């Protein structure tokens, strides 16, 4: 098996003007927002006020941002247990998300779903499944709906490397290819499923190759490089929208935190401090920030201003969530049927 460490430096290759400056800055802002929210959860989780198992996406911010900034508000997204970043990048209501972590009635799922079940229909987030692979056929079905209605939407499924082990993804992609559905499959290969390294679960680690036999267009990118993710997703999404059918994108990345909660995994013992450090050095946000500064697409002052603003907003978001009412006991049976 080939080494699965990605130790190469992140190279942001942007040719003059091929990605608008404003968009390049937007990548940063989106990733920054995701990072800030995750760090805030990380900071407050020990208070035991968020009574839900959080799966932080620190280290994977570039995938969410690079993909979702290609989407329209009415494009569909289905995500998984590690969905905070996708929710934010797709433009979901952050207050409602954090209120969901606090199990509040103001939560996006009215406190019924918790951290693993985020939804925001206003921006096409039609739900999140905590069954690994569960959202993949759902996104495929939403794409079928678009084809039947000819409404020109694109559907996205976000999932981890372990979803590749579930048969449902092969079934889904075969169907999507058969019907040329406008759906893009985005795999965030962060090398682990809970404490299990990819090599314990998959026969070979080039996930993208798994789908070659179906002739689906495939991209494999450095998932910590927002520009690379963006470029691949842009092509895939454009093709889907043009009736060209589905694509598959493998993003190599790493979660800097433990599977859930706020540890690093090192204390559990399934991975080493060195490995984590290597990936900390490849932080998608910090590296990209450096790049923007170098390219003078952003100034230190702007960063400071932006940081302060986001800090304030995030503070407000968590305050809102915390102050929100809990669900009412006598409404426990509601929403089972419609």
């Amino acid at each position, binding site marked *: 098996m080939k080494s699965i460490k990605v130790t190469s430096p992140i190279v942001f290759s942007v040719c003059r003007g091929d990605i608008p400056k404003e968009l390049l800055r937007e990548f940063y802002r989106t990733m920054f927002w995701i990072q800030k929210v995750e760090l805030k959860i990380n900071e407050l989780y020990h208070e035991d006020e968020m009574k839900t198992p959080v799966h932080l996406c620190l280290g994977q911010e570039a995938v969410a941002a690079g993909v979702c900034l290609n989407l329209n508000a009415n494009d569909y997204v289905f995500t998984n247990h590690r969905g905070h970043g996708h929710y934010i990048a797709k433009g979901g209501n952050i207050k409602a998300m954090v209120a969901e972590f606090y199990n509040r009635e103001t939560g996006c799922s009215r406190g019924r779903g918790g951290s693993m079940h985020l939804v925001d229909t206003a921006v096409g987030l039609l739900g999140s499944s905590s069954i690994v692979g569960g959202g*993949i056929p*759902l996104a495929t*079905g939403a794409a079928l*709906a678009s084809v*039947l209605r000819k409404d020109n939407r694109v559907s996205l499924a976000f999932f981890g490397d372990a979803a590749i082990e579930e048969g449902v993804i092969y079934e889904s992609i075969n*169907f999507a290819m058969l019907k040329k559905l406008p759906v893009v499959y985005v795999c965030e290969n962060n090398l682990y499923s809970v404490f299990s390294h990819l090599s314990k679960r998959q026969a070979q680690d080039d996930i993208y190759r798994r789908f070659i036999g179906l002739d689906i267009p495939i991209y494999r990118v450095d998932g910590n490089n927002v520009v690379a993710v963006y470029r691949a997703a842009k092509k895939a999404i454009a093709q889907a929208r043009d009736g060209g059918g589905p694509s598959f994108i493998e993003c190599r990345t790493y979660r800097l935190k433990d599977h859930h909660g706020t540890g690093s995994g090192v204390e559990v013992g399934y991975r080493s401090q060195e490995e984590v450090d290597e990936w900390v050095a490849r932080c998608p946000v910090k590296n990209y920030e450096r790049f923007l500064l170098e390219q003078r697409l952003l100034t230190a002052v702007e960063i400071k201003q932006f940081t302060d603003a986001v800090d304030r907003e995030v503070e407000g978001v968590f305050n809102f969530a915390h102050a929100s009412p809990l669900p009412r006991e006598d409404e426990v049976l509601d929403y089972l049927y419609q």
Partner: protein
Amino acid sequence: MDWSKTLVKEEINFEADKKGRKLSYAAAIREALELAMTSDERVFIMGQGVDDPVGMFGITLDLHKKYGQERVFDTPLSENALTGVAIGAAVAGMRPVYMHNRPDFLLLAMDQIVNHAAKWSYMFGGSVRAPLVIWACVGRGWGGAAQHTQTLQGLFMHIPGLRLVMPTTPYDAKGLLITGIADNNPVIILEHRWLLRQSGYVPEGLYSIPFGCGVVRRQGKDITIVAISYMVVEALGAARELEKQGIDAEVIDPRTLRPLDEAIILESVKKTGRLVVADTGWKTGGVGAEITALVAEKGFEYLKAPVRRVTTLDIPTPASDVLEAKFYTGKADIIVSCSEIMEKKVTK
């Protein structure tokens, strides 16, 4: 189309009135599909062989010619993913009908049915919904054996968030399917292959039968037989025999198991004091258990005798016809059970 308009509250029992035309069971269902597809663009049909020359026992015959291959399409044998596809399309606003010629294959899709469809509305506080119909026809006979004849309502009845429908007459099959397509929730409809031989009076046009609304198929005062799906036929046969023995049985067809028309069952037992449940599925932990438990909880004071469940044996379906004959129960078993509990002394 505004589906709510078809959701008539008062149901007319067309069979009794012999209004409408006499239609085969398959034709009745086909008509429901046709009407739904005509009136609502969001409806589409998927399933193995729905567009083949046989058309799923004739039920989907040539619908693809009328509505196009996009709206009536064959599926790969990928039951879990395709169920997810149907759910995803439903969540995105469509009204899929996913048809299977046997419920056994639904076991491959339990993750999407139970973990996803059944939970999608509740889990997201009602902001999304999954209005899809999963339709399957129970097999029986000719050595279909263990993997091609399962009924499985015992499993689906246990899952909150699902609707579970088991029609008995062409009239009901059409009306309940229309209701199912119009419903905003995941609906499982289990037909029975032997009922497909029936024909009956079916009105033209759209009509719907409310879920949770059973019917008294035969009035009686001595004993209540709650019969599910094909067992209604057996129960009515048994009731005719029992009459000769001087036992006047009431036969109730709940039509939908989730929601279950508790009132119609409890009222009947209030009158008769005796209950036999006749189901096409396994006994242990099945539909018969739930209906018995319902009465033991809420109708206990009416009961004059032990309850009896008439079900298949608790084994996989055997292939051999002589064993099949033991495995399946019917009229004779219902008669025995009824006679037994009629004789029971009321010891309290």
